[in-house]
């Protein structure tokens, strides 16, 4: 049956309407980041397009230029940050920290969870199912419940305020989901493929690496995106466990001060923060395809 044109038009209209609703906050965020401070909050009117675009917010947060030099000594909150040229709105190190931690914890999570998921999917051992439930139970507790013991433990282990510490703690949160997710992808790969590989002369490791892993590429990519995005946006644990190292969500909150909020800097750094995760998702996107096992078996 051919869909009537009016219905097609209606569908597109609805799709566009919903897209606009979802995109608007991002659009407004981006717009705010290029507004001069005076146009972000204007007590007379909401400034939409009627402003002189400026890159000053980016120059301060992403390029690390001194705000006092650019704004002539005054910021929105009136604080004169950066005495002696130090710029507390400089986001360069924080972007670097976030990238290191997000990529580090994604790689670590994938490495551990792939092995665990393979064992759970392929090897019969006592308590297999129990173990799976136990893994899942780790997600029942909200992170805040473990924060106090974690701080003590990390302090004693010398992991507070280290990349390794945050990589470990983000992996800790991501592992259960990653294991469960990867296990379900592995379960979809027919066991006959491992067996065929073994008969062809592969060790278990070879059949895992050369046959099984390539087939769940899509699943690995999806899991990687989840892990990365979690780590990139995680706030609470990073806040408690670091002071010198600052991830983006933690850093951005420091722009909200008792004397005022630097909306311009917040929106500029926030918009910039979207970029790395956007690039990361683009990179793994080509692996996010279904049907990698198509043709392996008779369906």
């Amino acid at each position, binding site marked *: 049956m051919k869909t009537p044109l009016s219905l097609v038009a209606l569908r597109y209209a609805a799709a566009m309407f919903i897209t606009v609703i979802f995109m608007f906050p991002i659009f407004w965020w981006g717009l705010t980041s290029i507004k001069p401070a005076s146009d972000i909050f204007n007590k007379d009117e909401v400034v939409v397009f009627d402003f002189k675009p400026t890159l000053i917010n980016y120059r301060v947060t992403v390029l690390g230029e001194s705000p006092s030099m650019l704004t002539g000594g005054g910021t929105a909150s009136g604080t004169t940050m950066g005495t002696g040229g130090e710029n507390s709105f400089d986001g360069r190190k924080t972007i670097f920290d976030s990238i290191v931690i997000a990529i580090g914890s994604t790689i670590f999570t994938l490495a551990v969870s792939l092995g665990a998921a393979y064992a759970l999917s392929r090897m019969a051992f006592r308590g297999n199912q129990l173990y799976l439930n136990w893994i899942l139970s780790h997600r029942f507790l909200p992170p805040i419940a473990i924060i106090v013991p974690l701080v003590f433990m990390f302090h004693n282990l010398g992991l507070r305020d280290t990349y390794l510490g945050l990589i470990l703690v983000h992996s800790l949160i991501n592992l259960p989901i990653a294991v469960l997710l990867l296990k379900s992808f592995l379960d979809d790969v*027919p066991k*006959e*493929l491992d*067996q*065929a*590989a*073994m*008969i*062809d*002369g*592969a*060790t278990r490791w*070879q059949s895992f690496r*050369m*046959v099984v892993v*390539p*087939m769940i*590429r899509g699943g690995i990519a999806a899991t990687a995106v989840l892990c990365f995005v979690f780590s990139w946006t995680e706030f609470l644990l990073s806040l408690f466990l670091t002071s010198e190292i600052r991830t983006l969500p933690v850093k951005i909150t420091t722009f909200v001060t008792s004397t005022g909020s630097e909306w311009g800097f917040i929106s500029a750094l926030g918009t910039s923060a979207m970029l790395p995760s956007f690039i990361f998702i683009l990179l793994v996107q080509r692996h996010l395809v279904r*049907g*990698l*096992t*198509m*043709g*392996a*078996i*008779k369906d």
Partner: protein
Amino acid sequence: MASVTISDAIKKYGALQVLHGINLDIRNGQFIVLLGPSGCGKSTLLRMIAGLEEVTAGEISIGGSKMNDVHPKDRNIAMVFQNYALYAHMSVRENMAFSMRLKKVDKSKIAERVGWAAKILSLEPFLDRMPRELSGGQRQRVAMGRAIVRNPDVFLFDEPLSNLDAKLRVQMRTEIKELHQNLKTTTIYVTHDQIEAMTMADVVVIMRDGNIEQVGSPLEVYDNPANLFVAEFIGSPGMNILEGTIGEDSVGKTFDFHGFSMPLPQDFKVHAGQNVLYGIRPEHVITSTSGAGLQATVKVVEPTGPETHIYADHGDMELCSVSRERLALSPQSEVRFLPDIDFVHLFDAKTKIAILKSQSAG
């Protein structure tokens, strides 16, 4: 190439025993078919030979060496799976080269072997395609190609044709048999399809409930089934089985059934009054519309072209005959079924084991 010996092989899954002491000798170069209904343990036995299942007790040896604890990769066997199990992310060429790549075989040698296998299996035009771009028959051929390139000691086939359509199945059947005739590699083939077993095997092993019921050439098991199960399992339409007793008249021993007395070959080792099962294959039943024979009412007539299957009821029993003549029969008409007594099989009613004739018993 190698022989395969299975002695007292037992397989248990927890408390459940699926194989009860299997003994089997497979000679070098033989094509042996494990045949049986689903759940009889034939695939389990094959997987034990492959090393994919542990042997609970007993011994499996290939080429004279015990294999029980040898990893599949070190058994030098090749296996074709029912669902092909191709490496979907590799091209046909890579699929076939995989085993040699693992063994670090010389690249030129790999190319040569893959080319050779592709030629035998007519896969040359498809070498650079991915499995998903192939038809079912082509995929099956790739699975076979993957097996033959390595020149293994033993080929294992696990119902390789059951996913193909009828026509392709017949074609692949011939191809596999031809392949075996050329390569002469010891082959163990699992199927539940008796036509595959009959047409391909040097030796058929009929299994039921984890036991071997009979081992023999296809015609041996067809002509001389060792017991009622084999008699009923092999042959389509199945053997007619009548339950009755041995009687005696002026000529000699007879088979008495529903007040009807049928002559028997005199060399059966039976005694009067013995309860027996009388088996006769449909093609050994002479069908006529009048004259001697069991009277029956036609139920269904199935012409297949070369022959016609006639199903008819005698009392509450369904009988079947196969006739090559063009008989004008319609449902509800009366027919006479006359067994050809040279082809009668007798089974003990209690043990269900075939009753032998004196000379064949020696």
